[in-house]
């Protein structure tokens, strides 16, 4: 069941890019701009195997944070948010799992992806992809986007956070 506050859900729905921070080797935070997708329950990101170091990091330590910060990428929807959670990598079949799971969500935000998909022959490895499913556990919200003010804090209901 969804517990994220409505303004955060709205940001997830419109954001063209968010910053996924994972824990790299030696405990170092590493940040990757990615397109966030949201189906009303879980947050999905995805990564080509070409750019898969982040996936290796998340396999070692699945704790992640996702920030929605860029007003330009948010198409004028106000606010900023940071979501902390646990990532699960879905990669049984990098060739087609992602199409079944997230292609509809992806094309809603980036319609041009269908054009690229038709040219899959030109970019075969770009379309070998893993899906990153994030279960949100904690959330910070800056309703007006000003991080100079303390954020509102939300936590997942206990049974979902477990």
């Amino acid at each position: 069941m969804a517990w994220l506050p409505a303004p955060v859900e709205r940001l997830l729905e419109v954001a063209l890019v968010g910053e996924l921070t994972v824990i790299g080797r030696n405990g170092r935070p590493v940040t990757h701009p990615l397109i966030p997708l949201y189906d009303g329950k879980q947050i999905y990101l995805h990564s080509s195997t070409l750019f898969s170091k982040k996936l290796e990091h998340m396999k070692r330590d699945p704790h992640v944070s996702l920030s929605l910060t860029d007003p330009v990428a948010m198409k004028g929807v106000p606010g900023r948010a940071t979501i902390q959670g646990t990532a699960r990598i879905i990669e049984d079949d990098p060739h087609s799992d992602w199409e079944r799971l997230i292609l509809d969500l992806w094309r809603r935000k980036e319609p041009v992806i269908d054009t690229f998909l038709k040219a899959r022959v030109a970019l075969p490895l770009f379309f070998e992809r893993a899906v990153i499913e994030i279960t949100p556990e904690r959330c910070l919200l800056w309703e007006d986007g000003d991080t100079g003010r303390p954020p509102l804090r939300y936590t997942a209901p206990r049974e979902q956070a477990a």
Partner: protein
Amino acid sequence: MPRGGSVPAHDATSDDLQRLDRFPFVVVSWVDDDGYPISVATDFRTDAAAGVVALRQPAGETLVLPTDREVNVCGSHIRPKPGEGYDERRYLQLWGSAGPADAGGEVTFRPTRAWGWDEQEVPFFEYSERSVPQSRHYLAQLSAEKGRTIRPRLAAGWLILRTTRLPFLSATFVPVLLGIAIAARHGAFDWGLALLTVIGAAFAHLGINVANDIFDTLSGADEANVNPTQFSGGSRVLIYDLLTLRQLVALDTALFGAAILIGLALVWLTGSMLLLAIGAAGVLIGLAYTAPPLKLVYRGLGEIAVALGFGPVMLLGAYVVQTGRLSWEAAVASVPVAILIALVLYVNEIPDRSGDAAVGKRTLPVRMPADAVTSLYLVAAMTAFAVIVVGAIGGLLPPFTLLALAAVPLAFRVHRGIQANYSSPYALMGFMGTNVSLHLLTGVGLLLGYAVAIVVAQVF
């Protein structure tokens, strides 16, 4: 090639701080006491001379930047394109340490390492190509984890198209059809033999494509090339692990086998030992292009080999199948076709020149400066059309073949494209396509000229 992207992480420099200044805000991240990353946007200003970034301390007691662990500062930019997605992607991240906030609420961040990507500096396709080793590594690890082989895939049709580089068959159809047309004008035409010739030549061409791919991959030439385009850099099916070497060798054996069988059938049907000699020369030139011991392309003979193979050999071979003899007219007609197909290779070699040089391929763009390469293109293209004009005026070619001159403007367009985009592989790609069209349209013009000449001869 290192795994993981186009720009390896490096020690942070004042250049990185200047790059950071292009972003309107940054996202600061660290790992919190619960073991989760936490990230928050904030304002900043850089002091490149001092090598520091002043960050505005975000509000909230759990968002106090830690001084006892590594902090990441990331700038990220996109330009949304309504109804499409976005472009102008660039990002930069710095790692370092943060000090305590001062009385004004500013934290001094001292970066030590940096990493990023700007698609205006490293185009997406090059960035992807540089990341291929990471993909192979990841899929190998995944296969080990899952206990089964997980490899990239393409639908069979796309895989065949990519592996054989099927669209380049126009390089074969032009000379073969022209040879058949010249023979027809000379009164010799057999549908069955014509069809077998086209099919056999196509198999030979595809076999040569695959063989070149095998040898270019084994030599490291294709892997050294991080700017492949749809016209250059090989099929990359081995580099991408879409096929194994064994599969590719089997395919090549089948293609060459089919070409040789059809060639022998044509020799048997026509009884022409001349055809056998021409066919054998074609296969040898095709293989020797990249295969040891001759490796013609490594010796600076690649362009000549392609000109011979896809000019006189194909055209005269098709002519001999129909007539059993050679002809000066067919030889002259093969010259512009030979020059223009060599120019297709020549322009395609321009973006490949770094990779080619790295593995010792001495192509003309490797050996000559940009100005000379650009000038030689125009001289060679104009020579091709001059041969048509002189041939027509001199009576060796039918006057209607002057129709081929309609393609001349394309040569000037490609020349301008090379001048303007010599070092921009992806900008050059469109002109590579125009260059292929130049060869094809000139061939079609010559074919139309012969078709009209045949019809006129029959009517009058």
